[in-house]
């Protein structure tokens, strides 16, 4: 049965609407392409390597502007990563770009030895992270990147949540000396930060909303969902703190422990498998330093399917409603004490 929604309800369902965020204007990957062009323009040591997907990742911006510093290595991710390692050894800053799932699953061995173990100054763009690439289906979706990059102990992990944070993350990754992983996605995300107004320090979570009853810790698309959830919880008298955990390694231990101590309950939200995901790493910090009730929003042990992004988010429980339900449960557990 096809259900039609009243217009008002449709607008309310738009990601970020309840939090008062303006509508999204462009896909996150477009912001990546713009930011990559910016750092390549400013720094002649930046080179870009592509696995024949630059029109999808938007690394093509550099191909057009600086063809000499752009290499399409073809559909050969293992070689792609190895060649990048050689370029890094020559003093260049290679941006390795492809789909998250193809890079990690075809070239994990090369990322492990030639990048992580060698601790080289390479940057890795894993695009099409999460399930919101939609109709291309589960073969293309990167739902295990946090877990797999988690297994590369020297690699910094960044997950931008909007256009401004993508630009800030590409700048920060390029300036940082050492290997960095950056997640991008196909979906358009509403602006959480003003354009060019995202403060992004690697390893320092951004406090987006103050609150004392529960903390919502989110990354990527789930940041806007968490802000929506906080607005809905406020209507019930629950004041939620919201943290944008844009860096998954190194974790902001201080902000996580403060959240546990000051709000007494934590909900994590991520577009990733719960096993090995952001929430399980946050839980390790909480359990060790300040145990409080926690709930987790993310993908249960399952692959998803081809569909519209918002259909997938609803079916696989990655919405503001899911965060609200988890927050209620966490607050209830806290009160039972």
């Amino acid at each position: 049965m096809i259900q039609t929604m009243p217009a008002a309800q449709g607008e309310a369902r738009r990601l970020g609407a309840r939090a008062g965020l303006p509508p999204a204007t462009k896909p996150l990957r477009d912001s990546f392409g713009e930011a990559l062009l910016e750092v390549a323009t400013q720094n002649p040591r930046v080179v870009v390597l592509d696995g024949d997907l630059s029109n999808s990742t938007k690394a093509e911006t550099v191909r057009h502007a600086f063809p000499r510093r752009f290499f399409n290595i073809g559909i050969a991710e293992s070689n792609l990563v190895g060649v990048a390692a050689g370029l890094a050894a020559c003093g260049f800053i290679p941006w390795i770009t492809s789909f998250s799932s193809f890079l990690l699953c075809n070239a994990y061995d090369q990322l492990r030895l030639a990048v992580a173990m060698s601790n080289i100054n390479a940057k890795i763009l894993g695009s099409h992270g999460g399930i919101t690439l939609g109709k291309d289906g589960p073969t293309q979706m990167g739902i295990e990147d946090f877990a797999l990059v988690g297994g590369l102990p020297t690699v910094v992990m960044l997950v931008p949540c909007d256009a401004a944070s993508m630009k800030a993350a590409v700048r920060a990754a390029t300036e940082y000396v050492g290997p960095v992983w950056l997640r991008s996605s196909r979906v358009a995300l509403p602006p959480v930060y003003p354009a060019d107004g995202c403060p992004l320090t690697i390893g320092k979570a951004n406090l987006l909303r103050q609150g004392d009853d529960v903390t919502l810790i989110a990354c990527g698309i789930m940041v806007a969902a968490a802000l929506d959830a906080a607005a809905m919880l406020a209507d019930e008298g629950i004041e939620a703190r919201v943290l944008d955990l844009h860096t998954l390694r190194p974790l902001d231990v201080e902000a996580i422990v403060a959240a546990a101590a000051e709000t007494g309950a934590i909900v994590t939200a991520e577009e990733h498998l719960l096993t090995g995901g952001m929430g399980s790493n946050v839980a390790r910090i909480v359990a060790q330093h300040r145990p409080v009730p926690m709930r987790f929003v993310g993908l249960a042990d399952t692959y998803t399917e081809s569909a519209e992004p918002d259909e997938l988010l609803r079916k696989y429980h990655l919405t503001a409603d899911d965060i609200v339900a988890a927050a209620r449960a966490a607050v209830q557990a806290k009160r039972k004490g």
Partner: protein
Amino acid sequence: MDIHGLCNIARQLRLDVLEMTTLARSGHPSSCFSATEIVTALYFGGLMRYRPQEPWWPERDRFIMSKGHAAPLLYAALAHAGYFDRSLLWTLRQIDSPLQGHPIQALLPGVEATTGSLGQGLSVGLGHVLGGRLNGLDYRVFVLLGDGECQAGQVWEAAMAAAHFRADRLIAIVDYNKFQETGPIAREMALEPLAAKWESFGWYVLEMDGHDMTAVMTTLTEACRPPRPGRPTVVIAHTIKGKGVSFVEADYTFHGRALTSEQAARARKELMS
């Protein structure tokens, strides 16, 4: 240096590898012995430009030991060339030593790449060539591959890309000792026709007896000046696993196994004779 001098260095490197792996009670001496003349010619035959006191000199020629299990041979050559003190060699595989069982990039001066998962070195070498081109430098990059390693898909990804990018400063050398871990290559996973495979990927192919020092010098010198600009070069070196020690040559199960101290004494005698 003349051929006789190079042969003496090769003998010294084999003795060092024997000592290192026997002390460590582990390692792959037989895989080092098949490549000893090749590595000797590159480092001491005047084929490579390098500065041990300035190990990361941007204009240096690069050597990448893609068959990472021959790490002891690389370490012995680097010590002999003066990159670090020889006494470090006896710490191979011991706690707190930079001489890891397989090489880790830059953990020691002169170690260009992390290898040990076979198949990776040629790609890294290609990256060095492309980097040299961007930097306006014309150094060469030598990559030593195992024969079994040529079973890995990444080697052929890199071979295809090197020809595509006209990486004629890239020189691959295949240590074709005819054995892999579990048995003869021809029985386990045949490579032939190996020369034709490289040829069809767009490479200039040379073959040599990898233990005849005169042939090694002549062939590697030719590899540095290939007649076909734009083509990368591969040298297929026909070698003997365990070369120089009769009872190791005769037994491929020595792969991944150090000699006992009694066997080492016998081997030392053979190598000195």
